[in-house]
């Protein structure tokens, strides 16, 4: 367990165990990322702070600037990370990144499972992935940002772990409420947790299993090699690795080395090479500093010095880069070749208020902050709705949640204005789509029943749903007045509360369609 290493450290002759300092820092950063994520729901912190997880990430800043041909001052925030990297190498990966920290927590370091060796050449994968991401960005395609660790982090919490915990919490409350004396404590707990951490009432989220499965996959890859993701795949790690090549402070091994091999076995990225005199690759080293403390001869130093990182066997050559570029271009050509007209399913492809389809695709980081901010569950991650290139972009799914008339949070939390920060008055006029009544399924139209829920719910000052009163004679000869809903096309903004609340089971009898 952890105690064994820390015990050793107190006995150690070295005054400061940098490995322990790093672990504390990792914990604090993880907490910070968590707090920022939690606060996104109610916008309980300043929006600029909530943008931080996306703004500080150099890969997101770079690709988004390229794809959208814009450079915002806020994007320069990522220069902080670049500067740190130029000075100290991949500190982001070892100290700050929430995915890296989570992978450390599940490193299987102490498990008895022997890890199969992974060929060194696999390390090239992340560089090729980075190249593909950049080329795609050049053509306005940001689909590969789903692999950025910050977007993975937010997506996993928003689309998977968050809703699952929320469901579990609600179920536990309902179950415990059956015990009579629990009412008081439960009320206290409920008011402590809602709406700060969980929504007042559970929000529906689609495909909760997917982000969880994908994240579990990252854990399982740890069984193959520690921090498999960071070594072989992470495109952000790859970008920072390339910068680390020029890092001022690097790990260096001096002549005191006794070749005991302890550092090799402890290195989480496996970059310490006995054959090269226990030297490491600055592009791979996450500056975890565990080797510093492990070395019995104090031969490891992290010191400033000149000199570039030597070329490694797995660094991509011209040939690999060219092939990757060609594959990326071919892939883009295939993916971007789509019918120009909307297909059947597309007529329900609704984008958040203010967002235009093409513009959104060129700006959206696929980070999912908007989904976390949406209070009703109207915004859902797209899986198939928006095609392959739109995976994990936000779509409005009115049957799961309505776009709240008095809310413009999605535009406020979007770090790149892919959903523009519309003032509330403008958002209330933005037409997401239009509602159409299916008269074959609508309770009054189809069954002669009494229902006006859509009209009742319509939030507009002049309701976009009006009721036509029709005198009818029922089958049993009784007379009555039937109220039939109609949509007033020019008033409807497609907020979808009618579709959400429609009491017809399954597919609603009133549905929002896009207009273009």
């Amino acid at each position: 367990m952890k105690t064994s290493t820390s015990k050793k450290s107190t006995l150690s002759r070295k005054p400061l165990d940098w490995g322990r300092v790093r672990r504390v820092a990792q914990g604090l950063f993880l907490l910070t990322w968590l707090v920022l994520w939690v606060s996104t729901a109610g916008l309980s912190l300043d929006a600029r702070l909530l943008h931080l997880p996306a703004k500080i990430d150099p890969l997101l800043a770079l690709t988004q600037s390229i794809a959208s041909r814009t450079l915002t001052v806020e994007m320069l925030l990522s220069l902080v990370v670049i500067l740190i990297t130029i000075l100290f190498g991949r500190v982001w990966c070892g100290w700050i990144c929430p995915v890296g920290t989570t992978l450390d927590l599940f490193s299987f370091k102490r498990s008895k499972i022997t890890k199969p060796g992974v060929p060194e050449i696999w390390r090239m994968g992340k560089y090729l992935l980075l190249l593909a991401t950049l080329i795609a960005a050049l053509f306005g395609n940001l689909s590969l940002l789903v692999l950025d660790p910050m977007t993975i982090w937010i997506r996993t919490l928003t689309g998977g772990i968050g809703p699952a915990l929320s469901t579990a919490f609600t179920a536990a409350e309902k179950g415990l409420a059956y015990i009579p004396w629990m009412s008081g404590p439960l009320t206290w707990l409920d008011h402590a947790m809602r709406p700060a951490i969980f929504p007042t009432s559970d929000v529906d989220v689609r495909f909760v299993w997917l982000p969880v499965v994908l994240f579990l996959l990252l854990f399982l890859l740890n069984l193959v090699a520690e921090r498999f993701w960071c070594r072989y795949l992470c495109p952000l790690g790859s970008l920072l690795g390339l910068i680390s090549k020029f890092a001022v402070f690097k790990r260096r091994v001096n002549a005191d080395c006794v070749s005991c091999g302890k550092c090799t076995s402890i290195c989480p990225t496996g970059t310490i090479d006995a054959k090269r005199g226990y030297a490491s690759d600055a592009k791979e080293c996450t500056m975890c500093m565990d080797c510093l403390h492990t070395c019995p001869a104090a031969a490891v130093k992290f010191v400033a010095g000149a000199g570039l990182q030597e070329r490694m066997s797995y660094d991509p050559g011209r040939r690999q880069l060219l092939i990757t570029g060609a594959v990326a271009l071919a892939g883009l050509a295939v993916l971007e070749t789509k019918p120009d007209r909307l297909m059947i399913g597309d007529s329900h492809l609704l984008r958040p208020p203010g967002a235009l389809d093409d513009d959104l695709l060129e700006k959206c980081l696929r980070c999912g902050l908007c989904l976390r901010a949406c209070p009703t569950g109207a915004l859902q991650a797209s899986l198939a709705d928006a095609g392959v290139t739109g995976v994990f972009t936000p779509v409005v799914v009115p049957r799961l949640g309505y776009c709240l008339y008095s809310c413009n949070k999605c535009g406020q939390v979007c770090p790149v204005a892919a959903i523009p920060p519309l003032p509330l008055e403008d958002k209330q006029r933005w037409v997401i789509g239009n509602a159409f009544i299916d008269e074959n399924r609508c309770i009054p139209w189809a069954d002669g029943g009494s229902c006006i829920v859509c009209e009742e719910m319509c939030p507009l000052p002049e309701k976009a749903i009006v009721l036509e009163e029709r005198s009818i004679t029922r089958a049993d000869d009784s007379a009555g007045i039937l109220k039939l809903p109609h949509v007033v096309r020019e008033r409807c903004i497609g907020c979808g509360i009618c579709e959400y609340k429609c009491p017809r089971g399954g597919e609603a009898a009133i549905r929002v369609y896009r207009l273009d």
Partner: protein
Amino acid sequence: MQKMSRRKALQYLLAGTAVAATAPFLESCRRAVTEPPTFPTTSANNIEATATAADLPYLAVARNAEPDALVRAAVDAIGGMSRFVPYGGWVIVKPNICTSYYPYEYAATTNPWVVGTLVKMCFEAGAGKVQVMDYPFGGSPEEAYQTSGIAEQVEANGGEMVVMSSFKFKDTKIENALGLHNIPIYEDVFQADALINVPIAKHHGMSWLTLGMKNLMGLIENRERIHRDFGKLLTDLAGKIKPQLTVIDAVRILTNNGPTGGNLADVTKLDTVIASPDIVASDSYAATLFGLQPSDLDYVRVGAENGLGRSDLENLNIKEIDLVA
């Protein structure tokens, strides 16, 4: 770490499953205990009318003053707040805070000063705890409480705005119901010593108006069930929940595009407050403010027919108070 033995692993697995299964198990136990048997119903005539004190006016209407004065005059005329609130008791005040869309001027939510004054009067009558709550159908309760302006007035008068917890909606059996045999109702309503129902009088597409009886829909889950037959089902609901006092806010009424509102052209300022322990009588009187007959409202007609309350305004002792200076 030591390798986990199979026995240990199984124990953990079992314990984990047990913990995970607790909630659904308890839920199913609860359902087994509280699920009502289905049987044919006859009538609901055993619902008692709640107005008692014979010498007091059955219903009071105050006009032409500020909201706080209107509420005081109307409630004092029917015996004062101490008639309804026991000393040291727990009071729940239920205004209409239907959405988070518009402030009170739009007459979609109860007037904040009407609610605030009621809170104040409850404390003056010796109430120990006064809680104000509603469950909006559009937007979150926290935001709706703020937007409506009600939170500010309630807190200024020492009351507590409570966000209703979903786990407190418990499936409740209604005996001899006309159609609503069971529905999840907010349990605190039955545990509190008094429930004060404070709707705003406004337009509604199906029932013409939403008033006192319809306001009780904020205390239940599965509201869409009520839409099938407002008359019978609201009579069942009001008979079960039985607020001690209904105060109808007609300071501003919404005459069209209700219940959500949003258009000042649909708002009429009447400066009127109605108070009565009889929810049906209150709604009946409020109907006349819109130029309707009480019997135009399904739920008033069915409620009166089934003894929930009275709608024969001409036979009631009604005190009209004009506070014009």
